[in-house]
């Protein structure tokens, strides 16, 4: 076997004064980094395998471990960076397409951090969220062109089906297969308790979670995994997945090692085989075909449930969204290029797609100018990291946001970006029963509830600060934002003014 040119990415620092040889680190590392050497009578580490998931660091009873970036560097080069060189070594060694997980980690500008939010001073008094009512509830779905009211002030117009959210946050699509059963259990329970929805992703709906149907959005993706009558009938809404932000334009791939017996039963494919989702839906080659599928699903559910479409944010997303709205979708979920994934080719993840900030602003502006903004709800996704991002997303035009990476981090994810190996030490992105146990759904769902409740309160504080007491008043309200350090063109596309203007 010839020499590998890859040095370890991380280094395990073990303080031997503190190490008590309890071997908890060895038992807990699925990447087999730590082992006990009998002859030397000490714990030793194989740095090459370490991915910096920090499981051992957190479980060590004496805090004896620290993981650092391996000090081995290349000569400094602004162009041929550490990553650029190593990627070539890996491809030269394997001949394979580089896979990675979670979202785009390249240093593209983060536009959320270039926008600031307004607050009221004097002319429009702020509202105190702790003592006055604040409305965060939103309804997603097609709204009629006009409403007719009868003499008792009741709405006469028949409303198209709506989804009620107690707060404008939903859990985005993560398939059962890319994440574990326990992770889904935590998401489903948290969605129920919070009065929001979670998305099954394209892996089907496990029968144990059918009881959470009222809080479930089911996805119909190109692989059509798990799509049967019960799936469609149990759900609160159906989402057609055309694309996702992490890998626009290409299909999905769940490696055979993650297709356990249970996954095989839920997806209806042979155990151990790769689960492939083709790139386009092969029955959708035009916008008319999309309309056909949307209506076939509405027909299947007696027009009682909203049918949405999820697309990746790409060039011309505004025109695409306009077409989708006219094709009959009740909501459009737009996934920006920072969106996470269980596995995607690294180059596609890092280079394809556009930021959600621009996508939402462009789609909202285009739909308004065409007079059809009320016919769809918009859901923004693709790296919503905190409540300020949510406020900015809604101000740019979204009705609600989808969070996924943030939810997984709440469950214990440490962003080691190795989900595609199926060895997640936190029990999230794995099907190995030894590892799945580590995610206790009782603990997990409470953490998710805590996160969303905390964010909801922060949103109320920011709204109150702006003098607004209803999230609907923030929707598309570009005047509440100002840009800092952006070019005029960027400000124009986002439709906001520069700070000071």
């Amino acid at each position, binding site marked *: 076997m010839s020499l590998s040119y890859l040095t370890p990415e991380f280094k395990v620092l073990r303080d031997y004064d503190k190490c008590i040889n309890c071997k*908890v680190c060895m038992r807990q590392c699925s990447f087999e980094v730590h082992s006990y050497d009998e002859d030397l009578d000490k714990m030793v580490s194989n740095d090459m395998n370490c991915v910096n998931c920090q499981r051992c660091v957190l479980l060590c009873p004496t805090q004896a471990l620290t993981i650092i970036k391996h000090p081995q560097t290349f000569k400094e080069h602004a162009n041929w960076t550490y990553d650029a060189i190593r990627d070539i070594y890996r491809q030269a060694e394997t001949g394979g397409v580089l896979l990675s997980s979670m979202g785009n980690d390249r240093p593209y500008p983060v536009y959320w951090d270039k926008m600031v939010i307004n607050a009221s001073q004097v002319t429009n008094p702020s509202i105190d969220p702790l003592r006055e009512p604040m409305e965060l509830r939103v309804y997603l779905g097609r709204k009629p062109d006009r409403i007719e009211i009868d003499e008792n002030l009741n709405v006469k117009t028949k409303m198209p089906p709506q989804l009620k959210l107690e707060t404008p946050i939903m859990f985005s699509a993560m398939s059962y297969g890319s994440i574990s059963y326990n992770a889904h259990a935590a998401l489903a329970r948290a969605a129920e308790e919070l009065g929001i929805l979670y998305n099954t992703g394209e892996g089907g709906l496990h029968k144990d979670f059918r009881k959470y149907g009222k809080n479930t959005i089911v996805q119909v993706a190109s692989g059509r995994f798990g799509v049967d009558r019960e799936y469609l009938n149990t759900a609160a809404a159906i989402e057609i997945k055309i694309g996702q932000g992490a890998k626009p334009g290409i299909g999905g791939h769940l490696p055979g090692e993650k297709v356990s017996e249970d996954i095989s039963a839920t997806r209806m494919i042979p155990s151990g085989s790769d689960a492939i989702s083709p790139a386009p839906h092969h029955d959708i080659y035009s916008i008319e075909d999309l309309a056909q599928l949307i209506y076939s699903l509405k027909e299947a559910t007696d027009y009682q449930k909203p049918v949405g479409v999820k697309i990746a944010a790409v060039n011309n997303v505004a025109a695409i969204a306009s077409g989708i709205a006219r094709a009959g979708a009740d909501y459009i979920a737009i996934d920006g290029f920072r969106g996470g994934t269980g596995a995607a080719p690294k180059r596609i993840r890092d280079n394809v797609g556009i930021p959600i900030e621009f996508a939402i602003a462009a789609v909202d502006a285009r739909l308004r100018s065409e007079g059809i903004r009320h016919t769809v709800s918009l859901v923004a996704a693709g790296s919503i990291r905190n409540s300020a991002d949510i406020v900015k997303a809604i101000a740019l035009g979204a009705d609600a946001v989808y969070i996924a990476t943030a939810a997984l981090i709440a469950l214990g994810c440490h962003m080691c970006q190795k989900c595609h190996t199926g060895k997640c030490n936190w029990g999230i992105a794995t099907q190995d029963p030894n590892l799945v146990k*580590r995610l*206790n759904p009782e603990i997990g769902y409470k953490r998710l509830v805590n996160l969303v409740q905390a964010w909801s309160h922060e949103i109320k504080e920011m709204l109150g600060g702006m003098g607004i007491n209803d999230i609907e008043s923030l929707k598309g309200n570009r005047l509440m934002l100002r840009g800092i350090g952006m070019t005029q063109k960027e400000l124009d596309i986002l439709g906001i003014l520069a700070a000071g203007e």
Partner: protein
Amino acid sequence: MKKVYVKEEVCVGCRLCEVYCITSHSKYKDVLKAYKLEPQRPTPRIVIEENRPVSFSLQCRHCDDAPCVKSCITGAMRKDPLTGVVTCDTDKCVGCWTCVLVCEFGAIIRDVNNKVASKCDLCAEAGEPACVKNCPNEALVYSEGGISV
């Protein structure tokens, strides 16, 4: 009476319960010192059962009609009439291991260093069992009526 119950579906097999059981019965009561300074580290008082992916820790069940109490030849094994906790008085214990043989759960361990029986005492001094307090995944529960409480 309150006992320790296990949710085996979330036990991750880390054995931190064992580490903290040893620590709480050590002289120094501090993990680092218990492991580094004490030449004769205490024997743990719990048994870890493992058959991957199943794992769980097994503690003395503090039986109502404890066979170990009945079979103890020196009277070292005693069930406290008030608290219900079954403890082993190591001063009286002669290390005959009859209790080890007789326990239906296999929850008693032979402390071969001190030649006495080693058994869970629900950390009576501390007030809350160390294993329950330190389980990183809430797999151990200290309650009256079982796991669901």
